[in-house]
């Protein structure tokens, strides 16, 4: 749906066939569809599908496969070997593995660190998503007000943080929030607050992650909501004004219901995004203090590439897939209910 808004109708008009062309089509009896040319579509598709198959489809299946095994080390065996005459094809195994059935999945239920990571992620999410979407909505409403000038510049400036390198901005926040030397605590001290242990106390460390993520993504969500606001039919507001609706009533009974699909969309998007949080906690808090900001993806990274439990890490990843997928479905259901 949003894809359509990115292109104007202009090209369509430009390429309307000329009168002479139309005459020619009529004479020659041209149909309004490209006749099939055998083989051609496959040539256009081939490069995409080679890369899609090797680097996307295969890994999706292989992660599932891995989740039933214990990783022993880099593979050395040969799976397939045949001689084509002019060349020899040999496919070697990727890893030496030991089959362990469902035990990786069973471990998910007893692994306290996983539960901690899940809890941390949900905690961050429950604070961060409402805060960010609320702010984004307020900003979108403010920017949509008819009296506001310099809309374009304000909009782009607020959205710029999306383009800030994920890891670079995280290090800026790391230094900004340093307990002794950070400029944030300095400013707070001037008004008699603090010092706040932004990075060393579990609650504040989580708030630090919330703040950083909100800084980066609020403008992004604002732009999507603003596009949604601009699609609300003007007549609805005019009708509400005739009925003497207050500002709040117009928001509550016109804007909110009209905007609900878009709001739901950004909530789903942000929820999924927060579930996949990695760079910020990795850089800013390192998952600490005492694992208070360890996220699921960070735990996957630790298990896979620090401890080399690739099998268990694969099971963890599929747990993430299930959680994210289920959440999207639930949220879409909730959003759809009142429509009836």
């Amino acid at each position: 749906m949003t894809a359509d808004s990115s292109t104007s109708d202009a090209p369509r008009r430009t390429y309307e066939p000329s009168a002479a062309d139309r005459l020619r089509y009529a004479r020659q009896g041209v149909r309004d569809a490209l006749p099939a040319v055998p083989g051609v579509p496959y040539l256009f598709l081939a490069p995409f599908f080679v890369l899609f198959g090797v680097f996307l489809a295969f890994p999706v299946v292989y992660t599932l496969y891995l989740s039933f095994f214990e990783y022993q080390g880099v593979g050395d065996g040969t799976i397939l070997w045949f001689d084509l005459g002019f060349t020899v094809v040999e496919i070697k195994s990727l890893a030496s593995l030991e089959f362990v059935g469902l035990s990786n999945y069973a471990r998910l239920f007893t692994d306290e660190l996983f539960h901690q990571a899940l809890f941390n992620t949900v905690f961050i999410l429950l604070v961060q998503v409402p805060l960010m979407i609320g702010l984004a909505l307020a900003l979108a409403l403010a920017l949509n007000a008819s009296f506001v000038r310099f809309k374009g510049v304000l909009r782009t400036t607020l959205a710029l943080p999306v383009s800030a390198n994920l890891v670079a901005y995280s290090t800026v926040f790391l230094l900004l929030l340093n307990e002794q030397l950070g400029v944030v605590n300095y400013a707070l001290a001037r008004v008699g607050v603090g010092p706040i242990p932004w990075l060393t106390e579990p609650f504040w460390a989580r708030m630090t992650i919330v703040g950083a993520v909100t800084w980066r993504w609020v403008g992004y969500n604002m732009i999507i909501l603003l596009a949604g606001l601009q699609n609300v039919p003007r007549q609805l507001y005019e009708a509400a004004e005739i009925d003497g609706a207050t500002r709040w009533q117009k928001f509550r009974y016109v804007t909110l219901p009209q905007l609900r699909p878009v709001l739901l969309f950004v909530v789903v998007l942000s929820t999924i995004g927060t579930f996949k949080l990695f760079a910020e906690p990795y850089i800013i808090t390192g998952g600490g203090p005492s694992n208070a900001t360890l996220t699921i993806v960070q735990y996957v990274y630790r298990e896979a590439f620090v401890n080399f439990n690739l099998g268990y890490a694969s099971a963890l990843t599929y747990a993430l897939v299930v959680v994210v997928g289920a959440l999207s479905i639930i949220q879409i259901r909730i959003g759809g209910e009142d429509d009836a």
Partner: protein
Amino acid sequence: MREADRREGVWQFLTYTFLLAAVALTLVPIYWMVVAASLPQPAFLSYPPRFLPGTEFLANLDALQGRLDFLRSVGNSVLIAVVYTLLSMLLCSMAGFAFAKYEFRFKEPIFYGILATLVLPIQLLVIPLFLLMVRFGWTNTYQAIILPWAANPIGIFLMRQNMKKIPDALLESARMDGATEFQLFYRIALPTMKSSLAALAIILFLFQWNLFLYPLVVLQEESMYTIPVAFAQLVGFQRVYYDQIMVAATISILPIFALFLALQKQFVSGILAGSLKE
């Protein structure tokens, strides 16, 4: 009536205050980053903090380069992101053209199958991709970072949606004039896609620019680091040099800000088009 005017005035004032506060909160960390990057470390660490930029930016950059070749990481990141963006645009628009303008067997199921992979988190792929790259002997190479995700589901979706709008009659008449099938794509379809391609380019560039977990795993040699991986090293060093990290952050963030401020329209349409994914 005058009471209503007064309330409207207060409302407008509050709206502007809110917007300007948000702009300030957006820009303050960036401003402070530039200040910290241009002060000598001792001055920066003095308390109270300094709020005006100094003149030591190049000296700090020099010191940074002495510990880790950060400019090379910037070069790696730019090279990888640009090649990736171009390659992915080509693959996605070719495949999108096929889905939009040709008939072939299993067209719909294949297309929706590709689309379904959009719900999978990319973290799902990191473990097998790592094993694949070890097997290929591709760790510490550019292609290890460029090739995965070049076949991008969001790209093929965008291209197919927009290429459907090209009238068949136009392509047909070109074909009768003797154009080959590839010329139909290259000479006629692609030039009508400029705004969609610009939006897609921004989505792809930012995606690659921010990729962190996967390069962290696959790139171990300093000469191959991308910007995010270089940062992970800088933060991980025994002693953290604030001024140097801020120089690195400034180099990584400010040019892209300037670029998108100049390309406002494309940037916003890129965000809207890309909101389908993350």
